[in-house]
């Protein structure tokens, strides 16, 4: 690269960093104060884009920007007051489920309101053309962004450092119970911070329209970028977010400039993994204050045995009634139930949130496929050996992950999952690249739907029972002790990290078994088995069912899979419908369905 090329790519990186920072800042504020992992942040950004395109045809681009940001702020306000406020008291992570539902609803809303086609906004009047820098053309608008990013940063800095509102935000970020005890009106503060964060997302979206079309895919793509920036910078730290945005923006620009454009597929996740391994709280973050007064998750009473046995018997006789689709659907349910229960071991007893559980599911699926196709192992052996690959992956990633905690741990699991995903996506010769692998069918004697159903039933039921048993074993208790009070657990001689690491390996192996079963039930696999949506699905299943019960994840998996199947058949806007159902369930059963049933049962048995 010539020196002028370097300069230009540097400027490109700055422009990219500015837009990243705008979105990340809002997300960071919201998390800092309310501890909400706001999945819908990208959707708010998308809403800002569509609104700005729509408004700029009416009032012009420059007027549309503040208007769009304002409308999105109001949307944020409504979301906080009518939804999130009702569930702050619910178990942590339920807010995550609620914002996930919002993603689905907002996506379908945008589809309904603005149609399926991408809409390219206008160029910014007055900044529509390019200036010559070092003999090359550089867009005026990008220069404007380069200035705007730091300007917003300074404005936020002043707001946080020198206003009363800012002091309250910082106080709540540092210790929200203490701030509450000192008489800060938390409800108002949360609402205002959420609206401010939403406004920043809307602003980011509106400012993006001269550079990219408003489209329906932007929401999830963006929210993962924003999360990476926030976590790399340190949750709740605005200067950190700024620094991280710069770092990631420049790295991406220079990957492209130097001809390694393929790396942009995972560049930010590699950066995140490296940063988190070296600095467990991000670049400028500080350890999160322990949230006090969190109710212990309680012990997982073994669900009474009889209903479970009845369910098992019922599942065994299904093939007598049907040899068709019911078996296909139930096989999916079983596989996902095992996947969800394996995640629950980390999430429930382990107290470790994983955003990247699909890594082990996918490793199992790919291992099964590769053993079967490339090494010509018999299908039965491939199926049983596959979990070992997932266990190996979990051992490697888990070793790093258990050194972190909270959201940082979650994001590191995501980073590893994305890295595995990108390898599967890119390594054409081995994994078949983006198309994946086909022709992974069970051995002839297991090939019929009925036979394979029995295989899935036996393995999944056995594995789930095994996982439940593990939760109730001494190891399970040590794990829970490590979750509830790492200090005390350490003091009585429990090696906390070893417990957590073991939990990773166990959970990973069982997820791998689910993945292998999945591969042989579908006959083909693709990188989608390793993707973020797959991880999110598992989280949704566990949360829907209830983290605090053992049977919850199974119920959640059954409900979610059935919903997807039934609703997508009957309703055109099925994503919004699923989102709406989840929202209703969240509001009606904050303990999850499993928790709800358990409450009923205990009350009844008294």
């Amino acid at each position: 690269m010539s020196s002028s090329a370097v300069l230009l790519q540097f400027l490109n990186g700055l422009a990219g960093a500015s837009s990243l920072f705008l979105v990340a800042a809002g997300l960071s504020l919201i998390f800092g104060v309310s501890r909400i992992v706001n999945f819908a942040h990208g959707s708010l950004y998308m809403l800002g884009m569509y609104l700005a395109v729509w408004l700029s045809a009416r009032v012009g681009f420059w007027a549309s920007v503040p208007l769009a940001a304002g409308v999105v702020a109001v949307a944020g306000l409504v979301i906080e007051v009518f939804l999130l406020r009702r569930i702050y008291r619910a178990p942590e992570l339920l807010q995550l489920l609620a914002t996930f539902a919002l993603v689905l609803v907002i996506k379908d809303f945008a589809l309904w309101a603005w149609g399926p086609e991408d809409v390219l906004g206008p160029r910014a009047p007055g900044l529509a053309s390019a200036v010559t820098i070092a003999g090359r053309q550089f867009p005026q608008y990008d220069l404007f962004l380069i200035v705007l990013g730091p300007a917003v940063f300074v404005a936020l800095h002043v707001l946080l450092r020198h206003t009363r509102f800012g002091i309250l935000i910082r106080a709540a970020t540092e210790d929200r119970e203490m701030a509450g005890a000192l008489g800060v009106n938390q409800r108002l503060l949360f609402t205002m911070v959420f609206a401010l964060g939403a406004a920043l997302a809307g602003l980011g979206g509106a400012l993006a329209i001269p550079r990219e079309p408003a489209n329906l895919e932007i929401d999830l793509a963006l929210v993962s970028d924003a999360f990476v920036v926030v976590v790399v910078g340190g949750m709740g730290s605005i200067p950190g977010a700024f620094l991280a945005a710069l770092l990631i923006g420049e790295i991406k620009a220079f990957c492209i400039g130097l001809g390694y454009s393929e790396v942009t597929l995972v560049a930010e996740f590699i950066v995140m993994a490296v940063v988190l391994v070296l600095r467990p709280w991000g670049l400028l973050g500080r350890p999160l204050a322990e949230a006090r007064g969190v109710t212990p998750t309680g012990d997982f009473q073994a669900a009474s045995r009889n209903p479970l046995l009845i369910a098992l018997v019922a599942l065994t006789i299904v093939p007598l009634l049907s040899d068709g689709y019911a078996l296909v659907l139930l096989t999916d349910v079983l596989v996902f139930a095992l996947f969800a229960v394996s995640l629950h071991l980390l999430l429930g007893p382990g107290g470790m949130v994983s955003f990247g559980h699909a890594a082990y599911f996918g490793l199992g699926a790919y291992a099964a496929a590769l053993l079967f196709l490339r090494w010509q192992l018999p299908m039965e052996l491939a199926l049983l050996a596959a979990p070992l690959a997932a266990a190996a992956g979990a051992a490697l990633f888990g070793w790093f992950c258990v050194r972190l905690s909270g959201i940082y741990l979650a994001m590191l699991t995501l980073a590893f999952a994305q890295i595995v995903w990108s390898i599967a996506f890119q390594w054409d010769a081995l994994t078949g690249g983006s198309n994946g692998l086909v022709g992974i069918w069970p051995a002839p004697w297991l090939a019929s739907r009925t036979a394979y159903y029995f295989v899935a039933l036996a393995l999944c039921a056995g594995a789930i029972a095994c996982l439940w048993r593990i939760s109730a074993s001494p190891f399970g208790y040590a794990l829970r002790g490590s979750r509830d009070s790492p200090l005390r657990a350490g003091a009585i001689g429990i090696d906390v990290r070893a417990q957590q690491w073991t939990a990773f390996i166990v959970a990973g192996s069982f997820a791998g078994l689910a993945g292998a079963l999945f591969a042989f039930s579908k006959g083909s696999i693709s990188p989608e088995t390793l993707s973020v949506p797959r991880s999110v699905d598992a989280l949704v299943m566990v949360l829907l069912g209830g983290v605090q019960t053992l049977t919850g994840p199974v119920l959640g998996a059954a409900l979610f899979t059935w919903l997807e199947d039934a609703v997508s058949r009957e309703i055109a806007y099925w994503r919004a419908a699923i989102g709406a159902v989840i929202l209703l369930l969240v509001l009606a059963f904050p303990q999850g369905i499993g928790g709800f049933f358990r409450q009923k049962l205990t009350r009844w048995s008294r």
Partner: protein
Amino acid sequence: MILKPLFFITFILLTAPAFGQTIKIGELNSYKVFAAFLEPYKKGMDLALEEINTGGGVLGRKLELVVRDDGGTPGDAVRVAEELIARERVNVLMGTFASHVGLAVANLAAQRKVLFVASEPLTDKIVWENGNRYTFRLRPSTYMQTAMLVPEAAKLKKKRWAIVYPNYEYGQSATASFKKLLKQAQPDAEFVAEQAPALGKIDAGAVVQALAEAKPDAIFSSLFAADLQKFVREGNTRGLFRNTVVFNLLAGEPEYLDTLKDETPEGWWVTGYPWSEINTPEHKAFRDAYQKRWKDYPRQGSVVGYTAVYAVAEAFKKAKSVETEKLVEALKGLKMQTPFGPIEWRALDHQSTMGAYVGQLARKGGKGEMVNWRYADGTKVQPSDGEIRALRKE
């Protein structure tokens, strides 16, 4: 506890398929994920279905479309296809958009021995490396569309070529085919830069900059949708296209072209569908009927959906049966009429010879359109039969 089984039985009775009345086509597609392409596609299908059923259906029975959303992932698509096969008892599967989803369903079709007419996926593999007895594909493949552009590309005698493609199988194989075919036609061509941004996440400013640094005479691109729009706008602003010719797959399809509006770059060579200008009798008839029915103009997807339904209907007619094996034999070598003219379903690799239009982009009244176009027949853009047999391992 007694209620539950009762409920279950009622449910089964209610949903039990009605027998014998209609011939069912099980159509699955990613309607929500690729809505821009698939809404017109669905309109095309519905039009064809109405025409066929008004004309008395096929084999004396009415055709019925059972439409499902496949969620855009192979795993869900396979489950949905199983539902169509097992519960709906459809006579043929049809549809899919993304290549990996198409391949997964094709793979299932071979396992369950059901005919699958893949209408849209572009991957070469679905009829070549992973081709199977039960899978046929309608649209011209990535290879075919690339080959269509090569004659014009070679004619220009440009030496320095830069390439940009979305980083997944479609972009990769378009790039590989283009390099191979151009080298054959013009051995002195050089490839001076290659950019492979992630699908849907192109960092257009940096990519345009990097391409410009390589000082290419010409660019081959397989970008589409949002990536294409970002690339075009940045390229226009930064003057990348001032002295370079660009060849871009698919960019002439109304789905992608219409979104560019006054950004439409003049002079690009593209494959696409100049719907307003094709005045052959078969296309005029289709266009008039479509506009009358939907009060909207046809897109590329409309033609694909329309033709796919007709192809299945023709297969039933030729087979005089709804049995899979007979249908497979009937589709092999089936000749039929389409809005793009006559096509044949090649017995060799189950690929239809439907072509596409090759032309140049122009701006007219703030909108993009195709000029200097010609129809590139799908029969003429194929590798040799021997190569295909080797790929299909036959």
